[in-house]
């Protein structure tokens, strides 16, 4: 019998139609990946199976687990099934655990709430479970609190809770999206092992097609609440039917062609940069200790060069970015733009030569200002900012350059989609024709299809304006196509610097090798890619 069988599931919340006639199934011991872009309904499909939908949701169709109709179960019956027959792992390990309870108590709770074992045995079982997910007793006693663990370790605790009663079905909703690539690889490995060991069915929801291709036995592609294509992984990858599937895979592996950079002449020079953060004092009289986020970093970015900076969270790349922007002081060393030292004091000479595009397309703009005011904010650095028709012409030209319309100048940001907002952010960075632009995870929050468009835009702008930029990202595949040269950062240090293709072809530093090995790869797709 099929383990999980979803047939013609439709879901509406209020007047919103979230899911339309969704059908899919998961067999025991099988890994099924549901993928799609934001708004595709993939997470809601998972929550429907858990019976954890908002109260205003109405469903039709059927969800059956080993023949039990889940939609017909009472809330009390669903409580019995959750945790026992179905386990779930969530996206945000940092917030998925109760901060005021120990990890031991939280793992034991799954066992105790279903009265599966008496308390003393439940405690021993919780210990075994934590050992099984890779949290050993010596470093992770049951009395640890969540805040003492890293994101990856917390995700292991969440997994331990989910598999405590050996559920037949495990649902994982973007389980590695919030994690670094090396941690992601370990967590995926753990999930794969658990599926084999327990003969569980795993329904994994992820937007990352490389993860899907790597892990899943079967793939379900969703868009706007509908299943557009489904099939065994190898079959589907090599014989895509639906144009949306083809577009999705093509966009995930989108390549752009950058123009040749000009002959090297230094633009940004970072010499021996050191940035310390004071740690909270251990006691009143002790000297404050410091955490060194950036350790003696030196590199040069040449005029017309597209330089990448990759590293995992906490490696110091954000701190370095802020120091280059002159938002934070250095403890020693120096950063020069065109020969002028960058400091935290407001020097308009430097400010006007440098701009930035941030990650979050929603937080990057004052919601109360119109687009024309938003993108002209850098005019503040100019001695004689354009006025009157010169100003409106420049606004119109810049908006056109990033693929928007001049009329958009009078709108507010909430009227734009995430991708369009990122275009506005680029317009703001471009309007004063700065010599250097910093892209701080500028495409990381975007869906793959939108990301591909923004990467195209950047390539076009390189052609048209001869941009020099520093592209900071954790996403290796993006950095690979959009930069000429690349720096790899680990624990506050640049461990490797070379031409991008060289780094990816022949990585020299062990950390770079580990990073590249951990990143899931889309297989070479021989056909059908539009």
């Amino acid at each position, binding site marked *: 019998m099929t383990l999980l069988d979803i047939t013609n599931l439709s879901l509406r919340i209020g007047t919103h139609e979230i899911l339309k006639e969704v059908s899919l199934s998961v067999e025991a011991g099988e890994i099924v990946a549901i993928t799609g872009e934001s708004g595709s309904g993939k997470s809601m499909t998972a929550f429907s199976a858990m019976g954890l939908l908002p109260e205003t949701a109405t469903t039709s169709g059927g969800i059956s687990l080993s023949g039990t109709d889940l939609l017909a179960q009472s809330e009390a019956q669903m409580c019995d099934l959750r945790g026992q027959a179905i386990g779930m792992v969530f996206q945000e390990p940092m917030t998925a655990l109760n901060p005021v309870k120990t990890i031991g108590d939280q793992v034991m709770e799954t066992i105790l709430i279903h009265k599966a074992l008496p308390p003393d045995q439940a405690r021993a079982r919780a210990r075994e479970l934590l050992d099984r997910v890779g949290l050993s007793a010596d470093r992770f006693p049951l009395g640890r609190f969540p805040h003492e663990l890293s994101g990856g370790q917390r995700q292991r605790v969440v997994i331990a809770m989910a598999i405590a009663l050996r559920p037949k079905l495990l649902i994982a909703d973007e389980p590695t999206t919030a994690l670094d690539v090396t941690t992601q690889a370990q967590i995926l490995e753990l999930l794969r092992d658990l599926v084999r060991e327990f003969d569980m069915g795993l329904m994994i929801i992820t937007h990352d097609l490389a993860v899907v291709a790597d892990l899943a036995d079967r793939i379900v592609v969703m868009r706007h609440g509908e299943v557009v294509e489904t099939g065994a992984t190898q079959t589907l990858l090599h014989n895509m039917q639906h144009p949306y599937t083809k577009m999705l895979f093509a966009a995930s592996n989108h390549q752009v062609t950058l123009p040749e950079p000009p002959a090297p002449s230094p633009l940004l020079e970072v010499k021996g940069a050191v940035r310390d953060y004071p740690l909270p004092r251990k006691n009143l009289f002790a000297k404050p200790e410091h955490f060194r986020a950036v350790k003696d970093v030196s590199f040069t970015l040449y005029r017309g060069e597209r330089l990448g900076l990759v590293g995992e969270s906490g490696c110091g790349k954000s701190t370095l970015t802020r120091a280059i*922007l002159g938002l934070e002081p250095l403890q020693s060393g120096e950063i020069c733009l065109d020969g002028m030292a960058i400091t935290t004091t407001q*020097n308009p000479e430097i400010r006007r030569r440098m701009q930035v595009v941030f990650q979050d397309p929603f*937080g*990057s703009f*004052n919601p109360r200002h119109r687009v024309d005011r938003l993108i002209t904010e850098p005019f503040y650095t100019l001695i004689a900012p354009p006025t009157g028709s010169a100003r409106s012409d420049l606004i119109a030209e810049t908006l056109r350059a990033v693929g928007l319309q001049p009329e958009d100048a009078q709108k507010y940001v909430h009227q734009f989609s995430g991708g369009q907002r990122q275009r506005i*952010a680029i317009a*703001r960075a471009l309007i004063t024709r700065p010599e250097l632009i910093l892209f701080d995870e500028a495409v990381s929050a975007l869906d793959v299809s939108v990301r591909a468009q923004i990467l195209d835009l950047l390539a076009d702008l390189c052609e048209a304006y001869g941009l020099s930029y520093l592209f900071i990202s954790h996403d290796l595949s993006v950095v690979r196509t959009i930069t000429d040269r690349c720096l790899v950062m680990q624990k506050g240090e640049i461990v490797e610097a070379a031409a991008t293709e060289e780094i990816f072809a022949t990585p020299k530093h062990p950390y770079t090798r580990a990073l590249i090995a951990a990143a899931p790869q889309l297989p070479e797709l021989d056909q059908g890619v539009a």
Partner: protein
Amino acid sequence: MTRNLILGTGLSSLVVLAALVSFIWTPFDHTAMDIPAKLQQPNGTHWLGTDHFGRDIFSMIMVGARTSIAVALVAVGIGMGLGVPLGLAAAANKGSWLDEIIMRGNDLVFAFPSLVIAILITAIFGAGAINAIAAIGIFNIPVFARITRGAALSLWEREFILAARVAGKGAARISGEHILPNIANLLIVQGTIQFSLGILAEAGLSYVGLGAQPPTPSWGRMLADAQTMVSFAPHLALIPGSAIVITVLGLNLMGDGLRDWLDPKLRLAR
């Protein structure tokens, strides 16, 4: 939930209107004594009855509304006028000695309830409405400083503020141009809440004789006068008390309504 807003604004406007009308008209002179007509129950002539000197209670309530509103309003003004700039400055210089001094100063003022501030001020300068204003106003400063700092701090982490910094704008300019407009709703809502708390505090202070002094009428002192007569003339206590409840209730409903109307996601410690 605009029902709250309508009801609250209606009640509050009623009280403000009574206070304004009292400048040009009251049914009787609120100070005129008429001993033969003393302690009357509400009737056709004296709509809310008379007190132990035969004064018309309705007129006293109208004029008393002035005192309450003036004291609470100026106290909110003091709290906002000083607290908001302090909070903005503390947030703009997070972790600096300035932030530290402002926040420790706040903690210190929080240790002095407005009654205690009123006691100290009265001990030095004697009683009066100005003291009540100062006492409640001083207590409001850390309230606004704290809420401003908290909201401003989270905004300072937002990327649009970083973008403004990259454009070379200074802390003062960013605070005025980006931070203040984005926390204005929060401050308006907190302002109505502090306004209503100010009405309650003023009543308490005049009740114990630390607020407005005779002949300035105030609801709190009317209650103090009523206390000994409560067994045989309960309306003397019920009427001014109800006036306070209606005013405060109206302001609170208005605050809640405003909060829901301006921003459903706005969170307040209340």
